[in-house]
C-alpha cells in the first residue's frame, strides 16, 4: 500500500504545480500549516462575539451610536458602572452557585458510590440510572411550572435556599453519572481490604473512596458551579420581587430597562463570563486526569 501511494501522489500532483517537486513530508507539512491558518481564522470569526463583548465593555458610553473596532480610547466607565450596580447580584449568584455545588456534591457523591459497586447486585438501580438520563430531557419550564406552587406553599419563593436547591437540579444527574463513571474504576479489592481491616461502610466511603475520587469530584463541582451560575429560568420564575436577584436575572432586567448603556451591560457580561473562562482553562486538566484515572494504583 505504502509504495503505491508514495509513488502515485507526487506524480499526479506534479503537473498541477509549477513549484519544484517537494518531498511528500514537506508537502504535508505545508498542508497542515494551511489547516492551522484556516483554523485560526475560522475560530477568530466564530469567537468574534466574545471579542465584541470585551471590546464594547472597554469603550465608554459617550460614543453611543457606534462601537469602534478597537478600544482606542480605553475607558473603564462600563466596568465602574457594572460594579456599582451589579456587584450585589454577582455576589448573590456566587452564594447560590456555591450553595448549589455543596448540595450537588453532598447528594451526588454518595449516590455515585452506591451505584458504582459492580460486585453488589442492586435490583432497580439501572431503572434509577435510566430515570437520571430522562430527567435531562425534561424542559426546564415544566419543572419551574410544577415546582412554583410547592415553593409558594413552603415559603421558598424569593429565598436563597429555594434557588440553591432548585439550581442543584441542573447538576445532580450529570454529577452522579460523571462521578459514578470514575468510581466504577476503583478496584473492589481496595474496598474489600479496608473492610477486612474493620472499616465501616461510612468510613470506607469517607476515607478511601472520596480521596481517590478527588479529580472526579473537582470536575463535577466545577460543572455544577457553572450550571448554577448560568441558571436563568429558576431565577426568573422562582422569584417574584427584588430580594434575591442573581446576575443572569439582573442582566435580563438590564436589557429590558436601559439598552442604551451598552458598555455597562457588556462589562457586566464580561464579569459574569469569568467562571466560564476559568473553567475552560482549569477544568480541562481535571477532565483529562479524571479520564486517565491515574489516582488508582
Amino acid at each position, binding site marked *: *500500500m505504502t509504495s503505491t*501511494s508514495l509513488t502515485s501522489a507526487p506524480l499526479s500532483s506534479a503537473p498541477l504545480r509549477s513549484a519544484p517537486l517537494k518531498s511528500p513530508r514537506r508537502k504535508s507539512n505545508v498542508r*497542515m*500549516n494551511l489547516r*492551522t491558518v484556516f*483554523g*485560526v481564522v475560522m*475560530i477568530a470569526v*466564530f*469567537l468574534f*462575539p*466574545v471579542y*465584541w463583548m470585551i471590546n464594547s465593555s472597554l469603550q465608554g458610553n459617550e460614543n*453611543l451610536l*457606534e462601537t469602534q473596532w478597537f478600544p482606542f480610547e480605553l475607558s473603564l466607565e462600563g466596568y465602574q458602572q457594572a460594579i456599582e450596580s451589579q456587584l450585589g447580584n454577582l455576589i448573590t449568584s456566587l452564594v447560590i452557585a456555591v450553595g448549589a455545588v455543596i448540595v450537588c456534591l453532598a*447528594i*451526588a457523591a454518595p*449516590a455515585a*458510590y*452506591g451505584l458504582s459497586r*459492580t*460486585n*453488589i447486585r442492586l435490583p432497580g438501580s*439501572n431503572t*434509577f440510572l435510566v*430515570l*437520571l*438520563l430522562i430527567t*435531562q*430531557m*425534561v*424542559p426546564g*419550564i*415544566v419543572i419551574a*411550572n*410544577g*415546582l412554583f*406552587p*410547592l415553593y*409558594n406553599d413552603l415559603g421558598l419563593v424569593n429565598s436563597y435556599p429555594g434557588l440553591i436547591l432548585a439550581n*442543584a*437540579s441542573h447538576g*445532580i444527574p*450529570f454529577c452522579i*453519572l460523571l462521578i459514578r*463513571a470514575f468510581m466504577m474504576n476503583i478496584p473492589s479489592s481496595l474496598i474489600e481490604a479496608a473492610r477486612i481491616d474493620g472499616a465501616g*461502610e461510612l468510613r470506607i466511603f469517607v476515607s478511601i473512596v472520596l480521596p481517590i475520587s478527588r479529580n472526579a469530584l473537582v470536575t463535577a463541582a466545577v460543572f455544577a458551579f457553572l450550571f448554577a451560575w448560568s441558571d*436563568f*429560568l429558576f431565577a*426568573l420564575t422562582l422569584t417574584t420581587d427584588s430580594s434575591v436577584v442573581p446576575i443572569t436575572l439582573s*442582566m*435580563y432586567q438590564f*436589557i429590558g430597562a436601559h439598552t442604551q448603556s*451598552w458598555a455597562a451591560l*457588556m462589562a457586566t*457580561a464580561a464579569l459574569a*463570563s469569568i467562571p*466560564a*473562562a476559568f473553567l*475552560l482553562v482549569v477544568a480541562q486538566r481535571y477532565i483529562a486526569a479524571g479520564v486517565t484515572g491515574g489516582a488508582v494504583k
Partner: protein
Amino acid sequence: MTTLLMSDKTATVRRAPAAGGAARVNRPRDTNSHRVIRRRQLFAWLFIAPAIVYVAIFFGYPIVNNLTMSFQDFTTTTFYTGEAPWVGFDNYVSVVSSALFARLSVNTAVFTILSLAVTFVIGMLLALFFNAHFKLSGLLRSLILLPWLLPLIISAAVWRRMMDEGSGILNQILSSVGIGSVPWLTNPDVALFSIIIVNVWIGIPFTMVILYGGLQEIPTEYYEAASLDGATGWNSFRYITWPLLRPVVAVVLILGFVYTIRVLDIILALTGGGPANSTQTYATQAYQLSFVDFKFGVGAALSNILIVVSLLVAALQLRTSRRSNDLAG
C-alpha cells in the same frame, strides 16, 4: 456529557456478567453470604437514598403536579383560597383553539428544525476539520467550547448588542459592503431567523465536540484499507465515516432536538417572543401563560404539550436510527 452517557451504556453491559459471576463465587464459600449481600445492598441504597428523594422532589413532583394542574383552573387566587376547581380538558382546549396556537407550532417547528439542521452541518464540518491533527488544533478545539460554557443570557445580550439595528456591528459591516441594514430583531419576518443564528452559534460547540469524539473512535486502519481500494475524500466519508458514526449522530440529533425545542432564555432575552409574536414558541408561551398572565393551569397544559412533543419526536428519532442501523448491518 453525551460521551458520558454512551460510555455508561457499555459499562452497564459489561457489569451484568461480572455481578452474576461474583454472586456465584461467593455463595458456596460463605454460609452467611446471603446476609452479607443483603447488608451491603442496604448500605448501597442508603447511599443512593438522598439522590432518590431529591429526584422525586425536583423532577418527579413537578412533572406530576404539572399534569394535575393542567386539568385545574389554577391561578393566583388559588394561592390565597387553595381552591383549584377541576376543569377537565378545558385548559388544553383553550391552548389549542387559541388564535396563536398555529403560529406557535410553526415557530417552534421552524426554530427547532432549522437550528438543528444548520448546527449539525456546521458541527460536522468542524469535527471533520479537526479530526486531522495539526499545529494548535487542540487549543482551537477547546476555544470553540467557550460559547457553550457562557451563560445563555450573556450570549443573548452580546448578540442583541451586535444585532442592534441602528448601532450594531452586524449592520455596520453590512452597510460598509453596501448591503444596507437588516432589522434583525425588530422585523417580524426576520426575527425568528436572527434567533436561529444565535441558537446555532450556541449549539455548534456541543455538536462538534460529540461528533469529534465519535470520529476519534473510528480506527484509522479502516481509512487506510479504504484508500487502498481507492476510496478517499467523499467516498471514505460516505462508506466508512457516516455508517460508523451513525449511533453518535443519532445521539447528537436526539439531544439537540430536546435541548432546542425547550429554548427559553435566548428568545426571552433577544426578542421576548416579539415582535408581534413572531418568535413566540411553545416554551416561551408556556412561560408567558404561567408567570406573566398567572394562568398556571393553561401554562401547565401547554408545557405538557411541549414535553409530549419533545419526547415523542425523540422516541421516533431513536426508532428510526435503530432501524437504519439494523438495515445497515
